């Protein structure tokens, strides 16, 4: 590398309070026009590192040693005025959550051209014209009128593009993009990603792309730095890292990243006999009186069947009604119409009307490990309550049973005395699962239980579920937006789109030979590792959307 645009040398950043390093001795360099990705999980220090490229250290952190050079000038020793004139003009930032990063009280247009105006680069008219050009480049709908709208009037995907426009408005030499597509649905992500890639190339800017997603990174970056707990694990060209990882952490990450590729799908188990659970013609929603004509319909005429010890995955994007369906089955949301049968007997609509045995047989596990467990209770109390309620076990027996259940979810017995705040995210999710197991259920509803977890932790939870199913013959309804996870675990997949199940069948068939146009787009939107996938998939998406089929997507 001849010229270095950004050169981070042996940088260590630590917490002011505890002096614990967040970033430890990291060095990296970006050449003009190059796209470098930093890949890492939560807590890897990737955002902290990314912000140093703008000379910004968040409150509570401090630089212990090292330098950050932009075109040879050290950003860490620059005065406030010099930093200000560099930020937004030479280096610009695109944050993960555009919804939070736009000022809710200012019109979008004002905010997009603000960097150009405060740096006095161009007059307002010219800045506006340039922004309009960028709106076109980033494929924003109705570019002429978007500038007079307020952030809450625009969709998440559009806001993310608008933030990119804001960053590119001054024509910076370096863009720092921090997980810019993580908060988006996959079908939205693909469009945004493609627009970003195109715009970066047109600008000729260099970029530092921060992500946890290997596939996304492989589509957009020239080189990759793998970061784990603040330390660089390895560095190299994207394809080399993916095809021949050297560091052991990278290998773990890759193997956890159960890449679903066409053909690589779990073999379906034979589904014989009568189903354990049948849901027929379910319609449900929210409003004053959800059982009689709900105001907002979340689930529309849905049929579902689950056989004993089988796994049915329900996939769909946010707002597709998949969680509402789980709540209907659990009796938390009374349906407006339709019936649910458990092993041949009809289930009452609400929790209150169901018998204790019916409640025991179906358990639900929620998404967020942080709020699914009562922070005031110990693990023993949490599990003990399920045991007492459904097993009728006496207090004395419970201690031993709690240990057994903890062992089942691979946690040591001494965890019984801990409170949720003393557990990691993955451990909390195991307790969450253990609470369901304590009831000795036949069917467990898992509502996005891996989506708040890091890839490696999520993979270990899926392994646990797989084992529980094999050993105890449990059936699962596995609700997720993550198609790769569904593919690696489910026998059957049901695809939900706007409250309806548009396609249902064996995993292999749904994913490899999808019939419904929405399923085709959804399946094709899952980022793949191979080079050139992004452009090809974006092209196919355009064709599918153009050919109709009644599918419209958020952008």
């Amino acid at each position, binding site marked *: 590398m001849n010229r270095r645009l950004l050169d981070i040398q042996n940088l260590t950043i630590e917490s002011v309070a505890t002096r614990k390093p967040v970033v430890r001795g990291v060095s990296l360099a970006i050449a003009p026009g190059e796209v470098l990705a930093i890949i890492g999980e939560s807590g890897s220090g990737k955002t902290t590192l990314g912000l140093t490229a703008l000379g910004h250290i968040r409150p509570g952190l401090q630089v212990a040693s090292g330098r950050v050079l932009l075109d040879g000038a050290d950003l860490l020793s620059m005065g406030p005025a010099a930093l200000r004139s560099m930020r937004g003009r030479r280096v610009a930032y695109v944050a993960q959550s555009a919804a939070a990063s736009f000022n809710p009280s200012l019109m979008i247009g004002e905010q997009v051209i603000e960097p150009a105006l405060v740096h006095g680069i161009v007059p307002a008219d010219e800045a506006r014209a340039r922004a309009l050009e960028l709106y076109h480049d980033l494929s924003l709908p109705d570019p002429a009128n978007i500038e007079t709208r307020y952030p809450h009037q625009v969709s998440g995907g559009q806001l993310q593009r608008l933030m990119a426009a804001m960053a590119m408005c001054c024509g910076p030499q370096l863009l720092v993009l921090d997980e810019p597509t993580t908060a988006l649905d996959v079908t939205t992500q693909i469009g945004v990603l493609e627009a970003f890639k195109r715009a970066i190339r047109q600008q000729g800017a260099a970029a530092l792309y921060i992500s*946890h997603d290997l596939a996304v990174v492989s589509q957009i970056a020239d080189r990759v730095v793998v970061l784990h707990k603040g330390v660089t694990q390895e560095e190299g060209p994207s394809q080399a890292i993916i095809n021949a990882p050297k560091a052991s952490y990278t290998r773990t990450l890759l193997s956890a990243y159960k890449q679903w590729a066409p053909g690589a799908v779990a073999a379906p188990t034979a589904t014989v006999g009568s189903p354990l659970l049948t849901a027929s013609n379910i319609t449900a929603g929210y409003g004053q009186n959800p059982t009689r004509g709900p105001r907002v319909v979340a689930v529309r005429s849905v049929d579902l069947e689950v056989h004993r010890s089988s796994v049915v995955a329900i996939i769909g994007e946010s707002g597709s009604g998949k969680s509402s369906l789980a709540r209907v089955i659990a009796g938390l949301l009374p349906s407006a119409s339709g019936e649910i049968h458990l092993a041949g007997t009809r289930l009452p609509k609400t*929790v209150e009307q169901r018998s204790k045995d019916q*409640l025991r047989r179906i358990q639900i596990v929620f998404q967020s490990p942080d709020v699914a467990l009562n922070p005031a209770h110990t693990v023993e109390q949490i599990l003990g*309550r399920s045991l007492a309620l459904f097993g009728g076990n006496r207090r004395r027996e419970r201690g031993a049973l709690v240990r057994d259940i903890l062992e089942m979810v691979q946690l040591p017995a001494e965890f019984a005395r801990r409170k949720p705040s003393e557990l990691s995210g993955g451990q909390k999710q195991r307790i969450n699962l253990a609470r369901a197991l304590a009831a000795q259920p036949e069917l467990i509803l898992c509502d996005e239980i891996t989506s708040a977890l890091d890839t490696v932790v999520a993979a270990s939870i899926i392994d646990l579920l797989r084992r529980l199913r094999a050993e105890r013959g449990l059936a699962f309804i596995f609700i997720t937006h993550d198609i790769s996870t569904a593919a690696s675990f489910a026998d059957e997949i049901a695809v939900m789109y706007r409250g309806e199940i548009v396609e249902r069948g064996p995993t292999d068939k749904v994913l490899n030979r999808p019939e419904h146009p929405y399923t085709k787009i959804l399946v094709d939107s899952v980022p793949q590792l191979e080079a050139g996938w992004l452009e090809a998939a974006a092209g196919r998406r355009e064709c599918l959307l153009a050919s109709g089929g009644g599918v419209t997507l958020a952008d």
Partner: protein
Amino acid sequence: MTAVKPSSAAANRRNAKRRTLSATGVFAVAILLLWVLVALFGPFLAPHNEADIVSDVNFTRPTVEYLLGTDYIGRDVFSRLIYGARTTLATGLIATLIAECLGICLGFFAAIRGGIVDSVMSRLNDALLSFPHIMMGLVVIAALGSSIPVLIATSGFVYASAVYRIARALAMDLREKEFIEAARARGEGTWWVLSREILPNTTLPLLTDFALRLSFIILFMSSLGFLGLGVQPPTADWGSMVRENMEGLGSGSLAPIIPAAAIASITVALNLLVDELSRRTGRIYGGARE
């Protein structure tokens, strides 16, 4: 990507840090404890009886015999201050307990029931809150006259509406949490959800509210006392003591200032404590005095 993984050691450290008070916190607790002790053992500490006229001279300067001087009819201010601690603290505490119990029960009930019950209760409560407390107190006292039971009941009832709002908000926050959903999904009844799932998670905020409410109620009751509409003579009450002795102010007597300062010391200590506690709950308390 929000999963946080505190090591258990770090969590323990955090818990340990939670249990210790800062210097201002210790100061506040010390002042409150002092007054509670004074209130409990008052009759043993006071050199004179609260109603006894011990001197022919009114508004004397502090002397060895009358540590804080005498009041407008020659009673010992020091003794009356000690007896007044009892009246002021006891009436304040009982009224606060009434306000908290009433407010928490109704607030939790409204949050759990939801729907039309909640809307009707909350609308009514909003109407009550748009009545300045002092005006409510004045109307009730004009009608019923001033006596200790009337004062306590009025303060308790008037301040219950603010407690209701906070208790309801706390329960509403928690009601949406997944662990409450999980409890509902396993068929727990309303009582279990309230007492085992919601209450343990609201103790600190409710305790903080108790301290804040106590300071408001003490201010409210002593203001009524100062207006001559509170505890009636000869019972010593700090607010009434300020009023009785106002005429001494012109001659520089400390008799009106001392009981006022005593009230101030308690309300300031309570607010320092509230500030300390609310740092932990992350909720902002105080703001506009009610």
